[in-house]
């Protein structure tokens, strides 16, 4: 069905989008298009690859900072950058944990941790960790837990720490918590406790595939958005 001359777009996407993007690509193929080539890695890695001239069509970054970095080098096609999806932060605990906490200003996070550590993305390098630190700072509990975090390299690892019971509590994206049977959501973080979480998408300047733009449009469309919603991502 696919038009034979249609060249598959290469999409560089943040690793945490893997399942949702696979599903979106499946749907896209179902509509008679060529399957896009999806490459998943950390946003920093992807941005550096683009910077060094990698032949790709679309970039979906897990944070705005790396998209800004690429934009500042003039590597984006004007007018194609858009927020693709949003997310929320949640406080999680192992499924078997009985801890009860409601997230709010000055909430008893340190006490709830006991001698354990708080698993979260590394606030120095992982977007989810940066948002989490910001939220904890706004809620005035950061000082009490700053020395007690377990900064993970990616959110999946933070989930693993919690689901294995190595850490009694953790902070991850709602989309990640939803997918993992080993953890339960203790509470959501208030949306105003941190900067808005967005995953931006943009088409790259040296994009050659004509199918790139329709696919980008598809991801931003209602149909595309519904797919992301199903995987726990929020609207922007």
């Amino acid at each position: 069905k696919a038009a034979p001359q249609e060249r598959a777009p290469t999409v560089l996407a943040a690793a945490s989008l893997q399942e949702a993007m696979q599903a979106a690509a499946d749907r896209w193929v179902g509509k008679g298009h060529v399957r896009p080539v999806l490459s998943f890695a950390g946003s920093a890695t992807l941005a550096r690859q683009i910077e060094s001239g990698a032949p790709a069509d679309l970039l979906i970054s897990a944070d705005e900072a790396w998209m800004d970095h690429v934009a500042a080098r003039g590597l984006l096609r004007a007018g194609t950058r858009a927020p693709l999806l949003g997310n929320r932060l949640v406080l999680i605990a192992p499924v078997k944990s009985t801890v009860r906490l409601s997230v709010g200003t000055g909430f008893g996070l340190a006490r709830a941790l006991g001698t354990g550590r708080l698993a979260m993305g590394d606030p120095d390098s992982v977007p989810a960790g940066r948002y989490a630190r910001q939220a904890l700072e706004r809620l005035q509990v950061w000082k009490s837990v700053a020395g007690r975090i377990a900064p993970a390299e990616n959110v999946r690892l933070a989930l693993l720490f919690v689901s294995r019971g190595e850490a009694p509590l953790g902070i991850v994206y709602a989309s990640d918590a939803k997918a993992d049977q080993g953890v339960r959501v203790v509470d959501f973080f208030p949306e105003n406790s941190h900067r808005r979480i967005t995953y931006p998408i943009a088409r790259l300047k040296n994009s050659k595939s004509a199918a790139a733009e329709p696919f980008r449009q598809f991801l931003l469309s209602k149909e595309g958005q519904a797919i992301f919603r199903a995987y726990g991502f929020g609207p922007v």
Partner: protein
Amino acid sequence: MDVLALSDAEWAIIGLSLKVSLVAVAAVLPPAMLLAWVLARCDFRGKILLDALVSLPLVLPPVVTGWLLLLAFGANGPLGRLLAEYLGITLIFRWTGAALAAAIMALPLMVRAIRLSLEAVDRRLEGAARSLGAGPWRSFASITLPLTMPGILAALVLGFARSIGEFGATITFVSNIPGETRTLPLAIYNALQVPGGEAAVTRLAIISVLLSVAALTVSEVLARRAGGGRAGHVL
């Protein structure tokens, strides 16, 4: 075992991993031998610096090596540009790039192993070969090289295993493109990112291990054939 009924996609990943690793090891063997020879046999100022340079990919975190490869061999990198212009070769986002990354990561291990064996060769045997009429090259090929075989075999095993397991430099340099650069470790990484991906991780990890067991078996057989042994003696 049911876990080992592989899907087509998995077979493709295995095939790619094998291709990348074998090409990497084959391509890096000659320079590794040359470097081992220079380090074992020559004495010059800056030898330790050469040694350090060779060891670099071992000392640096793989992502840094990948990043440096990206800077050098990317489409905008100086070497990448040269390759593209004069040889029409692109490495970035290609399996050839994955092979380059694996080769670079395997290099220090292979050089050490070969060097170790090379330094143990009794050079008086080379003198004997020369006095029997062999020029330097023939003496190297017929005496030094076979006597270095244990080190070369060890280097091949180490290099192959390292290549099969190479992740950080690869994903940084050539990204994670299915069918092109998504080798076993990258596929494992992908599976690890997916909740409930543990089963897939386990399958892929077992495959990796089986590949290396196969490599080890081949090397043991070759080593035995090369060996000979001192039949009879207790001590």
